[in-house]
């Protein structure tokens, strides 16, 4: 993403922003369009996983290895897991851990547990979202500083393999 490999330096602020919310790191580089696309891609995948498998797709207690990947989405995954564990948890048969007492007046608000292919698809989606956001965090972490990037964008550089649009200056 940088104008050249030699211009890439460690950008901790952008990396931290990208880790907090998918796509936010690119806002640091004033690349709003890219930030929106990455945010839609990562969060869309994560929410799609929740839509298909329900909140049971994110479960740090029972699926810790899957959650290790899902945590790449950032605090969003931890918030979803916290809400799941405290509000909507349905314990699996045979689990030894004690569940928190049901919320008074909740009226059976526990979420239905997802099983089979539906559960696998949902967990996979959320895990892929986490891994993709890790890629975005790494990209934001090692990047040309914004001033150099803007100066390079004003120049004429041709990236190997890319085809400039007709009539427009080559980038």
């Amino acid at each position, binding site marked *: 993403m940088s104008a050249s490999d030699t211009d890439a330096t460690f950008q901790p602020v952008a990396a931290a922003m990208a880790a907090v919310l998918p796509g936010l790191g690119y806002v640091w580089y004033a690349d709003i369009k890219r930030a929106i*696309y990455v945010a839609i*891609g990562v969060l869309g995948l994560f929410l799609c996983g929740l839509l298909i498998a329900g909140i049971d797709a994110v479960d740090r207690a029972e699926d810790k290895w899957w959650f290790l990947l899902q945590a790449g989405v950032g605090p969003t995954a931890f918030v979803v897991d916290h809400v799941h564990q405290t509000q909507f948890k349905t314990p699996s048969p*045979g689990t030894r851990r004690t569940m928190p007492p049901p919320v008074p007046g909740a009226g059976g608000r526990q979420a239905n547990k997802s099983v089979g292919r539906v559960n696998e698809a949902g967990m996979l989606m959320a895990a892929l979202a986490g891994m*993709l956001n890790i890629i975005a965090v790494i990209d934001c972490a090692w990047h040309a500083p914004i001033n150099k990037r803007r100066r390079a964008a004003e120049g004429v550089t041709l990236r190997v393999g890319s085809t400039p649009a007709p009539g427009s200056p080559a980038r």
Partner: protein
Amino acid sequence: MNHLPLLLAQTAQPRAYRPFLDPISLAIPQLHDWWWLTLLPIAFFVAMAYKGVRLQSLHNFWRHVITMTAQIVLAMIALAIVLYLFIELVVPMLDR
């Protein structure tokens, strides 16, 4: 882990489907048979996030996304065919 008692208990007490909380199979039970359709949103969003990171210029972004989505879907289909042939043809030969 046997989830059958839990599933039976859930079906005995039907409840309105709550999006993002309950599995979508509660509203669309046929999804258990059509689970492979989930490949389409997976491929699309993976392509969107990946191209958003990798493309130096966002010119023709959606063309790249659609192309990569198609590549992922076709690759999965090809992989499924190869694995099917391997299991149905090669493994029995090795077993002899």
